[in-house]
């Protein structure tokens, strides 16, 4: 069977951009569904998380949504949304948005709340307006946690977008469900491999963006090594470090449950 998988993966026709059922086209479809849902979820959840985090009003919403989000099976949620809204691209997108909102909202809220009260007090004390406190002080310090949520949401959406094919749309799920229906296992496994690689790559891209966005002063890069006493600018030295996935990967232990990643589908 493994030979079949390899030849399916290496078959040039499967990689032609023009081929509707090729990897390139399916990946583009897959990323299209995912990105749309992620952007919509971000536009809804991120400002709300900032607001709840800054004012601490409505915190129960953010916390409970996060907890419920973790216990609810993704597959069931998607099916229920489709049962209510109907079948098609819009319902699938709605379902993906519903999945992505809790991690973004909860971690944005949690990240904002994790910023030290003394820092926020200092910001107010030097004369920042409330919106300046949010964007110039709280958010930059909250980024490491907020990014955890964004990455988690992205992974879930990319994983779950597979279901688009289950209800007749495109995306990488086609290989899995078509293959299963046709008992063409090389096709199934090849699709699973491409999907897995896509997920890893998406996560890597997020971790690189995170490096660019997050200040070395808050993500631990600046305190690494015996830099006290040396005159090297921290930002320069820090950027020499290779990006390591592990350090930004899910760390549920140290952090509260509300910041822990969610894993399903």
């Amino acid at each position, binding site marked *: 069977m493994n030979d079949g998988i390899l030849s399916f993966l290496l078959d040039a026709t499967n990689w032609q951009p023009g081929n509707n059922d090729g990897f390139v086209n399916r990946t583009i479809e897959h990323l299209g569904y995912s990105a749309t849902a992620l952007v919509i979820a971000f536009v809804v959840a991120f400002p709300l998380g900032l607001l709840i985090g800054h004012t601490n009003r409505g915190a129960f919403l953010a916390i409970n949504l996060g907890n419920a989000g*973790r*216990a609810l*099976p993704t597959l069931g949620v998607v099916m*229920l949304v489709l049962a209510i809204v109907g079948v098609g691209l819009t319902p699938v997108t709605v379902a993906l948005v519903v999945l992505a909102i809790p991690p973004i909202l909860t971690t944005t809220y949690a990240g904002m709340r994790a910023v030290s009260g003394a820092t926020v007090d200092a910001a107010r004390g030097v004369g920042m307006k409330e919106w300046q406190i949010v964007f110039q002080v709280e958010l930059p310090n909250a980024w490491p946690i907020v990014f955890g949520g964004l990455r988690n949401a992205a992974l879930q959406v990319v*994983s779950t977008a597979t279901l688009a094919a289950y209800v007749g749309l495109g995306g990488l799920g086609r290989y*899995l*469900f078509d293959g299963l229906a046709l008992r063409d296992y090389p096709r199934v*496994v090849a699709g699973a491999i491409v999907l897995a690689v896509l997920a890893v790559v998406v996560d890597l891209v997020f971790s690189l963006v995170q490096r660019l966005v997050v200040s070395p002063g808050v993500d631990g890069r600046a305190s690494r090594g015996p830099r006290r006493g040396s005159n090297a600018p921290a930002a320069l030295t820090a950027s020499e470090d290779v990006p390591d996935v592990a350090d930004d990967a899910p760390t549920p232990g140290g952090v509260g449950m509300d910041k822990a990643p969610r894993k399903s589908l």
Partner: protein
Amino acid sequence: MEFFSDVRTYLEINHETVLESLVQHIWLALLPVAISFVLALPLGWAVVRYGWLKHPILTLSSVIYTIPSLALFLALPAIIGTSILDPLNVVIALTLYSLALLVRTTADGLASVDQQVVEAATAMGYKPARRWFTVELPLALPVIMAGLRITTVANVSMVTVSALIGIQSLGQLFTRGFQLGFYAPPIVIGLVLSVLLALLADSIIVLVQRLVTPWARVGGAR
């Protein structure tokens, strides 16, 4: 309401299958937790003990955690030679995910133990192995148990995915709803049972945690 009577009717007709699915679901979700808990202890110990292991093991864990579960369920047969419908694939995949998370929490937990306490134990004459089991591990338990809770809840939810490849679990209630033309009653029954199961398992772990770490309860309502 009509919906509730539909739910009742569905249960009256299908309660045997639903019950069977529930039992199978519990097995598929909790067996990996138990296996990975046992494996995570030595691995977590090694990560803390041998610094050079930290980077490769934690990187590997996070890559594994990134792989979509459906993809892993389907790719495993090609790697280990099982049949694609074998529930063993689900158990192994979920064990890998649980292990990826628990190795990290175990290492975090062990690393968080106050070194002064460890030194005090050494000074009192504990040998390393005994000290590890009676001092370090108990003090690391609150963090490890937090990881255990997350894994358990995640597993209960993830098992449902295996229904897509035809393995029995509560997830079959979702695919059944789909086959019946997005008929809501089985979907809702599946959701409710799955969430209840997750909450129940979580509560049991919390209860066990209270019993085994009584010191964390008394002073530490921070």
